[in-house]
């Protein structure tokens, strides 16, 4: 397993302030990632997945307060100077941002944006950079790549822009990839191709991956382990098989049930009742309590912490769901 983690995140907390009030966007997130390991991150919109990635990369500290520890190959990133961090970003650790429209520069051609990245992070010469740019676009499935290098982002479809972002992130062969919803705008065949590419790089180049996605099918097919977030905290994490097949936290189970599978067409789908809490006024006890069917009196007053419930498996719940069908009976 993760005997020599390359990335260790410990008690990561990120707080923003809005109009003088503290907004606890990420709370006590901890996980370790080994070489070539793929870790999934799922959870409700607004639960802190993107902020977690931005905090790891040292971006969130510019507009929020970050505490806890992020160790990258033994070095502490949270206290590193911006200059040192810049050497690591893009070269050793690359990030694919969630919004491909806003993270590409609308004024520069796609080709320029790719070759600039290569110029900043590799020793390749001019000619080699152009070749590498075409090769990368080809890898991510942009047809006729050479003839589209001179185009601007607005001339690409949503999914093509997303693929350009992926090509830019992977161009410098990073050791760690932080991928925020990298395939949401892609059709399933291209998605499969890109996930294969990422898995291949993880395998052959020992690239570690943290993958944020809403698609539980993608999690099932790509991740080794997965963490489920709710209201800024990890509520369940462990081996992907165990978490998806026998969720122990009621929120994870609710997510699994919401997938439109084996339900009559055009009928109402299951969805977790209620709405997520405002981060400004989190409940005193378990943040999920107002929406939880297993909630008991303890849940209203005390907050459950992540506990080991099996080897490599953790849940933050006072009344976890039964581990197997037999237990339930």
């Amino acid at each position, binding site marked *: 397993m993760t005997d020599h983690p390359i990335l260790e995140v410990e008690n990561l907390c990120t707080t923003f302030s809005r109009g003088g009030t503290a907004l606890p966007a990420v709370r006590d997130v901890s996980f370790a990632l080994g070489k070539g390991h793929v870790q999934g991150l799922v959870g409700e919109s607004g639960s802190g997945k993107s902020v977690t990635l931005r905090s790891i990369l040292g971006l969130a500290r510019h507009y929020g307060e970050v505490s806890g520890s992020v160790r990258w190959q033994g070095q502490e990133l949270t206290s590193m100077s911006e200059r040192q961090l810049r050497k690591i970003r893009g070269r050793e650790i690359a990030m694919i941002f969630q919004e491909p429209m806003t993270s590409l520069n609308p004024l520069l051609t796609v080709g320029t944006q790719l070759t600039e990245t290569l110029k900043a992070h590799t020793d390749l010469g001019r000619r080699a950079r152009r070749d590498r740019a075409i090769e990368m676009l080809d890898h991510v499935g*942009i047809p*006729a790549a050479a003839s589209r290098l001179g185009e601007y982002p607005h*001339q690409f479809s949503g999914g093509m822009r997303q*693929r350009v972002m992926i090509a830019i992130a992977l161009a410098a062969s990073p050791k760690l990839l932080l991928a925020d919803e990298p395939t949401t705008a892609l*059709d399933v065949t291209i998605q499969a191709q890109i996930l294969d590419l990422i898995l291949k790089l993880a395998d052959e180049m020992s690239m570690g991956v943290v993958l944020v996605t809403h698609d539980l*099918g993608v999690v099932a097919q790509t991740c080794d382990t997965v963490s489920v977030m709710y209201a800024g905290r990890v509520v369940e994490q462990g081996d992907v098989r165990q978490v998806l097949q026998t969720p122990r936290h009621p929120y994870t189970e609710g997510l699994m049930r919401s997938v439109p599978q084996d339900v009559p067409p055009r009928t109402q*789908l299951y969805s977790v009742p209620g*709405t997520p809490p405002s981060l400004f006024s989190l409940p005193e006890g378990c943040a999920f309590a107002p929406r939880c069917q297993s909630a008991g009196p303890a849940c209203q007053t005390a907050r459950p912490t992540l506990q080991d419930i099996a080897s490599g498996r953790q849940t933050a719940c006072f009344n976890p769901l039964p581990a197997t069908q037999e237990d339930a009976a």
Partner: protein
Amino acid sequence: MTQTVMKIDDLHLSFPVSRSLLDVVQRKPGKSVNALNGVSLELKQGETLGVVGESGCGKSTLARCIVRLYAPTSGQIHFEDENIFGAAARKDRSYNRRVQMMFQDPYSSLNPRMSTGDILAEALRVHQMRPENEIAGRVEELLELVRLPQDAAEKLPHEFSGGQRQRIAIARALAVEPEVLIADELVSALDVSVQAQVVNLLLELQERLKLTILFVAHDLRLVRHVSNRVAVIYLGRIVEIGDSETLFSAPSHPYSRALLSAAPSLDPDDKGVAIQLEGELPSPLNVPSGCPFHVRCRHVTAQCRTVVPALRALEGRGEVACHHAEEINQHA
């Protein structure tokens, strides 16, 4: 029976590609991206038509033509027998109200400095939906319709979660009492539970308001769940269209089969048997001759390389654009 509300005929759209200096010097002809290559379809009153296909195949371009953000190079769209690009329809602004598009990212399409109430009130005023003294009441009604709390009216878009913002966008589209909704990747950015809420809301509103919906999405499970009919697009052409359940349980076109087989299973141990697509990826810059899928198709014959297959009805299935659909499906 079911009435046709919109009829799209042989729609073509190509975007010119900017020529590089070298091309200009060498006097190479300008190229163009052929985004739509003859799309024809009908939208029936009260139905949901799902649209799926490869990224870049022209789905958003089609959606944008329908709401007149793009003008097609050739072909026509009729809404209730009126050509929407004709002079008469252009003067008549009611089309802009009756056919509403909802974008993938409501955050960038909602004005960040306007409160939810103002956003909705503006939509009502622009299209003169209500006299001034009824606007406040109607805003309240709309918020209730999409199940947003009443105090939502005072809040700014960034004070909402992704799912709630999506519902504001829906409320705004519904404010003007449209008959047709064009939903381009409406729920892709939402987690599955919020997705389910939005889909439930759409289904319910469709029933109540008799809405016609064009639903573009990559999530095949979701498309299957919401659609009555589904169209599969490949390189700017419809290659298969038909009843949703039939198409999903027995896709007939080789591309539809490959696409559906690539949907990732929820079971980590079920690696599936995705049909590998061989050959180079097609480019809208250079659409292959004959069947546009022929460079990647396992069943290709000489005929496929030269003759464009027309969309035709296949017994027990929908309509399919493939010369060999019968044989291929016999052996399936």
